[in-house]
């Protein structure tokens, strides 16, 4: 970590039992030489900024870092408005505390929601520093400006930010401040590298799994193979015989959205002994109500539910009438399986319960919810629970759910010692919060000119709401939105939903409901284009239709011109329509999600029935591009994530238990399959919108559409591995 300790040098030295001078203290990569022990004065104009009298600037990141670059993006906004020198900045990760505002790192909204606030914080800090210099020099503040960590007057006289700390501390921080003109941004809108890149390349970044506390034990937990099954009895004899195993304790099941599944924990002096002990442990389960869950049978049930009339979620015009009048109608059914997040770092947490206080170190996307859940479990006040957020080795929505952290609290409480609970990869694959499984039925009507006159989209998929309210069988409103707000200018449209009871925990996974909806909508539009005999690009642009602003419930209006623009750009960048080698073809998809507009054009080849993706051209319009380096990286990563799910993603259940076990049977894309990925970021000064997720939903349908073009075969189910294409 690059955190500079929040203590004065003198107390730091005293703490080390040293009197003075000549000592070099290394804190991660930050070195400071304490030759002249002199108190460092801190200036804390607000919760997010600490300016030290030596000029070092510590900025607080309130959101969790899981590879999306949020620590750098958010703090660089403060630094930019503050006119700070980025090299003097170090980043401190906030603990989970409501005083920082919402910290839920989820839904591609950190930058979107905090951009203005971070700007104001930076601008207010700059204003105080200018006032401080004005006081010191006894000149009007209007004659001064800030630049690169200095306040400067019109004659070029300057004073460092650090030297203004003493005076600044005595001043009031202004509320109303002037923000910069975007054309003067120094860090915002640039390819600013992540502050963490070195630590993430040399093994020094501390992930949850790397956290160590004195006397810490390690634990692995055996859970029921069927969701919400319970422990009947267990025999710990064999587990206790494993060298290094010290205890075996039962963990309660808390049937709450984020409560532990329950099970039996094996506590040991090292992870491996805990894993071995877990294997040796014998547990008898009461499998509970979900023990008949068979995902293959279930898909048949979902499919039947979309082949009959459902509940109407949206209707425009008269879709049945349109189908009657159409000169041609087509129907398609799409089936997509469950997925699991499988972040590279498995769920894990270190928790130390001491009496009624508790300290947590965990890779969590949701530190405040963690605090609430842990304190509820321990029946103690939230103020007694400290949640430290480590680096996350990937999250993708899995680490929004603190079940694994509450587990560690339960074990620590039982053994009265700090403990790290570590999930095996098998645990991660088999006890997740699964991405929904979906059946979708689409029907379209075309008139004699090939214009679409009717559009029916019916889907059934177990809802995330079932995790919060067991027994829920209908989708939550947000789970219909990406189908109901389809931006097509079609006079008669209807969206219907079918019932879908959940038999596993359903969670949100990178881009969530946009995966199934983006797939069905984009593939079906391609099928209609083919039926109409029109080029898919031209057909799609016509389907989106006129430039218009669709009304939404928030201030971000859905703009069809922006949607068409990303599609046109992606097509242009890919040179859509150009002559391709034998067996090659292009496919496209376009989708609006997390308030951003994304289109991708992929080029595939299918040779000897094997598909290869050669290149992907993606274009994103996410409003003002706060960090182009991060946005490009997220779009590249989203393409790979989308390819993994298109090629391999499939979780199945038999007798209630998940059949996949590890990366051997839940495969990921690997380097030889990775295509060339080209990303264009649309330049504009609209409000920043989502980046982490919107690149995902377009990939699978674009590939399927390209395969159709190349082969004439239309694949309506994923993964492609099941079609022996990979």
């Amino acid at each position, binding site marked *: 970590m690059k955190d500079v300790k929040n203590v004065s040098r003198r107390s730091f030295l005293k703490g080390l039992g040293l009197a003075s001078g000549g000592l070099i203290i290394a804190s991660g990569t930050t070195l400071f030489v304490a030759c002249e022990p002199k108190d460092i004065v801190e200036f804390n104009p607000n919760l997010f900024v600490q300016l030290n009298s030596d000029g070092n600037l510590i900025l607080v990141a309130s959101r969790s*870092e*899981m*590879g*999306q*670059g949020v620590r750098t993006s958010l703090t660089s906004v403060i630094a930019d408005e503050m006119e700070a020198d980025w090299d003097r900045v170090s980043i401190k990760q906030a603990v989970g505390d409501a005083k920082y505002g919402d910290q839920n790192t989820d839904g591609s909204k950190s930058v979107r929601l905090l951009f203005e606030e971070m700007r104001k914080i930076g601008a207010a800090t700059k204003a105080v520093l200018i006032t401080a210099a004005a006081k010191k020099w006894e000149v009007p503040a209007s004659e001064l400006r800030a630049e690169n960590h200095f306040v400067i007057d019109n004659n070029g006289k300057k004073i460092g930010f650090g030297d203004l700390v003493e005076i600044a501390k005595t001043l009031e921080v202004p509320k109303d401040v002037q923000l910069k003109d975007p054309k003067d941004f120094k860090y915002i809108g640039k390819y600013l*590298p*992540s502050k*963490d*890149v*070195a*630590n*993430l*390349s*040399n*093994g*020094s*970044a*501390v992930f949850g*799994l*790397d956290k*160590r506390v004195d006397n810490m034990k390690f634990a692995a937990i055996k859970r029921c193979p069927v969701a919400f099954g319970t422990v009947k009895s267990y025999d710990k004899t064999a587990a206790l015989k494993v*060298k290094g195993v010290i205890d075996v304790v039962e963990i309660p099941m808390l049937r709450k959205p984020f409560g532990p599944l329950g099970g039996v924990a094996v506590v040991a*002096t*090292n*992870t*491996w002994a805990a894993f071995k002990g877990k294997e040796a442990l014998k547990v008898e389960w009461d499998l509970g109500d979900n023990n008949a869950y068979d995902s293959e049978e279930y898909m048949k049930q979902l499919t039947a539910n979309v082949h009959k009339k459902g509940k109407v979620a949206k209707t425009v015009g008269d879709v049945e009438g349109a189908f009657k009048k159409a000169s041609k109608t087509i129907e398609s059914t799409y089936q997509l399986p469950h997925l699991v997040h*499988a*972040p*590279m*770092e*498995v769920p894990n947490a270190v928790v130390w319960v001491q009496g009624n206080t508790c300290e947590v170190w965990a890779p969590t996307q949701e530190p405040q919810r963690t605090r609430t859940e842990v304190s509820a479990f321990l029946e103690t006040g939230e103020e007694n629970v400290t949640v430290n957020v480590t*680096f*996350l*080795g*990937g*999250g*993708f929505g899995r680490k929004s759910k603190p079940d694994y952290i509450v587990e560690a609290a339960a074990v620590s409480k039982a053994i009265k010692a700090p403990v790290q609970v*570590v999930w*095996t*990869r098998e645990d991660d694959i088999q006890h997740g919060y699964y991405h929904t499984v979906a059946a979708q039925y689409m029907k379209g009507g075309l008139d004699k000119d090939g214009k679409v006159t009717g559009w029916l989209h019916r889907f059934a998929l177990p809802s995330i709401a079932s995790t919060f309210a067991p027994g829920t069988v209908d989708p939550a409103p947000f789970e219909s939105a990406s189908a109901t707000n389809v931006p097509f200018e079609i006079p008669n449209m209807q969206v219907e939903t079918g019932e879908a009871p959940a038999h596993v925990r359903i969670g949100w996974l990178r881009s969530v409901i946009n995966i199934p909806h983006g797939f069905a909508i984009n593939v079906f539009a391609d099928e209609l284009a083919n039926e109409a005999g029109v080029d898919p690009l031209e057909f799609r642009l016509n389907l989106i239709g006129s430039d218009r602003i669709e009304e939404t419930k928030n201030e971000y209006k859905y703009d069809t011109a922006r949607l068409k623009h990303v599609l046109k750009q992606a097509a242009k960048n890919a040179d859509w329509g150009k002559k391709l080698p034998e067996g090659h073809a292009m496919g496209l998809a376009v989708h609006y999600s997390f308030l951003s507009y994304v289109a991708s054009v992929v080029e595939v080849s299918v040779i000897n029935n094997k598909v290869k993706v050669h290149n992907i051209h993606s274009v994103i319009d996410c409003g003002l591009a706060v960090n182009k*380096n991060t946005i490009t*990286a*997220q779009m*590249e*990563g989203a*393409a*790979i*994530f989308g390819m*993994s799910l298109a090629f391999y993603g499939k979780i199945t259940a038999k007798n209630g238990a998940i059949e996949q076990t*590890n*990366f*051997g049977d839940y495969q*990921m*894309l*690997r*380097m*030889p399959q*990775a295509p*060339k*990925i080209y990303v264009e970021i649309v330049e504009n000064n609209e409000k920043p919108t989502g980046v982490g997720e919107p690149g995902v939903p377009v990939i699978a349908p674009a590939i399927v559409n390209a395969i159709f073009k190349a082969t004439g075969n239309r694949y309506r189910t994923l993964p492609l591995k099941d079609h022996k294409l990979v």
Partner: protein
Amino acid sequence: MTKLKINGEIHTIDVDPDMPLLWAIRDIIGFTGTKFGCGKGFCGACMVLMDGKAVNSCQLPVSSVGENELITVEGQTENLQLLQKSWEEHNVPQCGFCQSGQLITATALLNGNSNPSEEDINNAMVRNICRCGTYPRIKKAINHSVELKNKG
């Protein structure tokens, strides 16, 4: 007692001889740069260099290491440091969790092949999963290191 030579230092540890090297390094000796990703040899997160070659430390019992020299991502060896610089240059890491393993595999590749082709790179790096999808940047960073190396 088992003796392990890691990053130039000898560590004497008292563990079961069949404990995988990964856990000896992480939990007993305390170098946490080497990661656990799958425990089954699928993902490469646990790669370390053994006599310059990349091995999945989750699959290697400590007893089979013998006198061989081990280097982890925290260690010093020319190609590793060169690659780390290129990793920074190309902003490779996203979450970073897989990157120790990626760097070790890439180091072993350059140790055995100072001018790898695209196919050589793919064949070596196929052992490592990156769930964040940094493959394009990893490839660029490896090529960048190769260029630096060959410039001398």
